[in-house]
């Protein structure tokens, strides 16, 4: 069964008097364990699509099912619960909590979202910090580490609850190309190790090539679906 199924999803919003059609009848299905990228120029609808899949926003039209759940039927609280239980997020600006250490940032979703008793998630946090190479910096605060390191911490935070799906909106946009590759490699490794599905958006063509499935968006429409090792129009 597909993990994400979008059927004719459209999203419109108003900016002042102007009606903007950010997505137009987009349909796709993503299988569990895939490493998927949405690409396209600025304004093509990548972020809007990721926000919809991330249950942060609701489409104007269409149907969207994630892990078998019709996410359009969820209210605000249920949406938050669903995100906490099934999704992980990696942000372009890392968005680590500045008053928490690296360790505490990774631990945060376990304690504050999953309500894991303190201490029980320690092994999981340490394993992930080791996997992302941040064990030595675990007691540092976000303002004491580099951008690449922050994104590694963000990857660990997104994975600590073992979500079914991790969404990353332009995760490498604020990183230099070398660090960007490292972060993408890390995400791929995590996907292989934990069998987590990753969906990320990017406009960086060099990074795009790392994805197994590439969806191309332009002006809110899904233009192309490319599978590594073969090509198929969407």
């Amino acid at each position, binding site marked *: 069964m597909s993990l994400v199924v979008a059927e004719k999803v459209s999203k419109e919003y108003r900016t002042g008097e102007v009606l903007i059609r950010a997505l137009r009848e987009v349909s796709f299905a993503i299988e569990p364990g895939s490493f998927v990228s949405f690409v396209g120029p600025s304004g093509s609808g990548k972020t809007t699509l990721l*926000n919809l899949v*991330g249950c*942060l*926003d609701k489409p104007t039209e269409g149907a969207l099912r994630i892990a078998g759940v019709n996410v359009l039927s969820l209210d*605000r*609280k249920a949406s*938050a*619960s*669903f*995100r*906490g*239980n099934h*999704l*992980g*997020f990696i*942000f372009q*600006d890392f*968005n680590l*909590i*500045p*008053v*928490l250490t690296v360790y505490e940032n990774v631990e*945060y*979703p376990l*304690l*504050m*979202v999953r309500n894991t008793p*303190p201490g029980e998630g320690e092994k999981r946090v340490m394993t992930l910090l080791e996997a992302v190479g941040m064990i030595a910096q675990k007691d540092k605060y976000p303002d004491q580490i580099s951008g690449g390191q922050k994104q590694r911490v963000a990857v660990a*935070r*997104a994975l600590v609850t073992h979500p079914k799906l991790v969404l990353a909106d332009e995760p490498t946009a604020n990183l230099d190309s070398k660090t960007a590759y490292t972060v993408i490699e890390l995400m791929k490794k995590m996907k292989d190790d934990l069998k987590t599905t990753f969906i990320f958006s990017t406009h960086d063509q060099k990074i795009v090539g790392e994805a197994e499935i590439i969806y191309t968006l332009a002006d809110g429409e899904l233009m192309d679906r490319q599978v590594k090792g073969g090509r198929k129009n969407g």
Partner: protein
Amino acid sequence: MGKLLKIAVRNLSRYKRRTLLTASLITLGVVFVLVFVSVSGSFKSMIISQITDSMLGHVQVHHRGYVASIDNLPLNLNLPLPAWKRLESILGQQPPIEAYSPRVKFGGLFSNFAETTNIRLNGVDPDREFRTVPLLPSRVKTGKKTLGRGEIWVPELLARGMNVKVGDPVVIVATNKDGSVNGKQFIVAAVLESATGPGGRDGYLHLEDALETLRMEAMEVSEVAIRLKNFREADSFFRRLESLLALEKSPQGIPIFEVHSWEKLTPFYNIARMIEVMTFFIRLMLIAVVLISIMNVMIMAVYERIREIGTIAAIGTLPGKILSMFVLEGFCLGAIGVALGNLLALVIIWILDLSRITFDFGMQKDLVLSPTISPADLLVTSLMVVLVAVAASLQPAVKASRMEPIQALRHV
């Protein structure tokens, strides 16, 4: 909860200067309120104690209608012997009473053989009177602190005006309730310091002498002053005694006695009430200070952390937890202010206590102020500040918890 508290404390320490300023403001407010409550409370209880322990007693019983015409000291409204005996038997069965003293009050003429003036007098049984109002002897400025037969304590102003000293003979002339006049010679045993309030400028003589001067064949009593073992029980005892004595009626079915608590007998009660009202308004000001300062800080905190709120909401933190996070921050700010304020106020009160500051109240000089603060006052003020701090952070916290993560994440 522990994690939430940790985040709240760390967020407060993130903006050290702002936290320090707000906490200082709350601390100052708490200090001001506690020091005011302790000083005014000590002033109030000292004056109440002066008035009740040197003149009034805690509760008084009179013949019905006596207090309404107390300015005339009406002898025809004295309690006759059977009523006094009945009252004595009732009072004797009241465990809260420590002592009670019957008084015969009357007005007369005071003569030093050269001049004559008016005087108000209390005929008392010295032993019973001193047990009922133990500070009475401390008002003796010069002379003996005891009162025997044939002796009189003269109020200071009268002694000065009439040029009378301890040991001088004086004559008291009084009219009894039948209208006949009688005079009796006394020796001035003491000059009595004046006190603020009713009876504060009265003279004292022995009860037997008063009965003789008024030619009373059987004992009559103008008022009975009562001292309780515990002053705090004055209100409840007053109500109990009032309902008990209401049952005592004349053959015509009219109640014989009337009971008055100290509050009804002294104008100082209004000052005491005014102090309580001032304390209330000062507490209200503290509430306003805490409310405005914490609400201001929390509104700023929410505004500055919109993206952070978006992040934690996006990763699945429930709205209730986000609300708790900010409310806890306000709580911590209030609690820090309260803790520091309590500590500082206790030190200041202790220093004031050691300083032995004196003040005058009416005719009473050099009263030593000894401020104290009760645990109940500390608790009430602390709880009030903490609750207001929580209430002040509620609005910003609700706003934070209701933010749409997508909009919060877009905030620049």
